[in-house]
């Protein structure tokens, strides 16, 4: 845990010490100092797929059509993630909570399995699956479903530690995407220091 680097100077009694009653919690404190290392959320970001598409079967990355969620109601904190061909780079080191969702619809065949998979690299080259979640879609024309997955990722070096989102589908499905509402998306929250 960090420390407060400046005191509430104008609340300290004569002689530089608090009196026996301590701080008067009914007072208004005009704190102008700096608190360091005290934790708190410094980065929160959200990205989404902007267009519907018919998936391929098998395992495939969400490699294109990403944009930062930009509705007025969605608030981001701190620096943004950056994305290139579906690979996300973190703005700073730290431990991140990452969640992702696929909004899926029946296309032409039932799916016994549809997986949402998070993949990470620590060398900016080879990726390893770090989290999976699965659902299924029945052979009904109006069948809608979603599958969500999340993980923690200790990003010790932003140049080598990256993440991408992929799916594993038995058959093709219709993947929901939109540029005005989050359907298939990823969210990134920095929880604290690495």
């Amino acid at each position, binding site marked *: 845990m960090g420390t407060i680097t400046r005191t509430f100077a104008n609340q300290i009694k004569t002689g530089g010490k608090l009196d026996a009653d301590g701080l008067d919690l009914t007072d208004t404190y005009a704190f102008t100092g700096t608190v360091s290392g005290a934790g708190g959320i410094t980065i929160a970001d959200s990205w989404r797929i*902007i*267009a*519907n*598409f*018919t998936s391929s079967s098998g395992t*495939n990355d*969400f*490699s294109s*059509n990403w944009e930062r969620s930009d509705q007025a109601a969605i608030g981001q904190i701190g620096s943004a993630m950056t994305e290139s061909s579906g690979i996300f780079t973190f703005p700073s080191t730290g431990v991140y909570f990452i969640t992702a969702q696929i909004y899926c619809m029946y296309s032409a065949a039932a799916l016994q399995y549809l997986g949402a998979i998070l993949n990470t690299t620590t060398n900016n080259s080879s990726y390893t699956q770090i989290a999976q979640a699965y659902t299924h879609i029945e052979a009904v024309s*109006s069948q809608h479903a979603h599958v969500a997955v999340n993980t923690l990722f200790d990003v010790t070096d932003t140049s080598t530690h990256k993440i991408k989102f992929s799916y594993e589908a038995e058959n093709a499905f219709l993947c929901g995407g939109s540029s005005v509402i989050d359907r298939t998306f990823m969210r990134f929250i920095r929880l604290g220091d690495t």
Partner: protein
Amino acid sequence: MNRPNHIEDYLVSLHTGQWFGWSDSKNKVYANLIIHDDSKSKPSESDCTTGLATLQSDYDTAETNATTKKASGKQKLLDLGLTEEEVKALIGA
């Protein structure tokens, strides 16, 4: 499934994968259509509008057929001697 109402609905029916996108995500018009996959050709604007119209027609036909078949099936059940209440319990209408 909702009634197709955008050329994107036609585009997703052409190929699988994320082969297309939009240069302006907030303005999904043909002029902003981009192709990510070099192995796929960009459909013409008329292909898109015609394709969308065909999807809408197919959807409407399927909806009409479903309604017609539901009414036909209901009538056959009534002809077999089921009451309106019994039919409603079976098919919800």
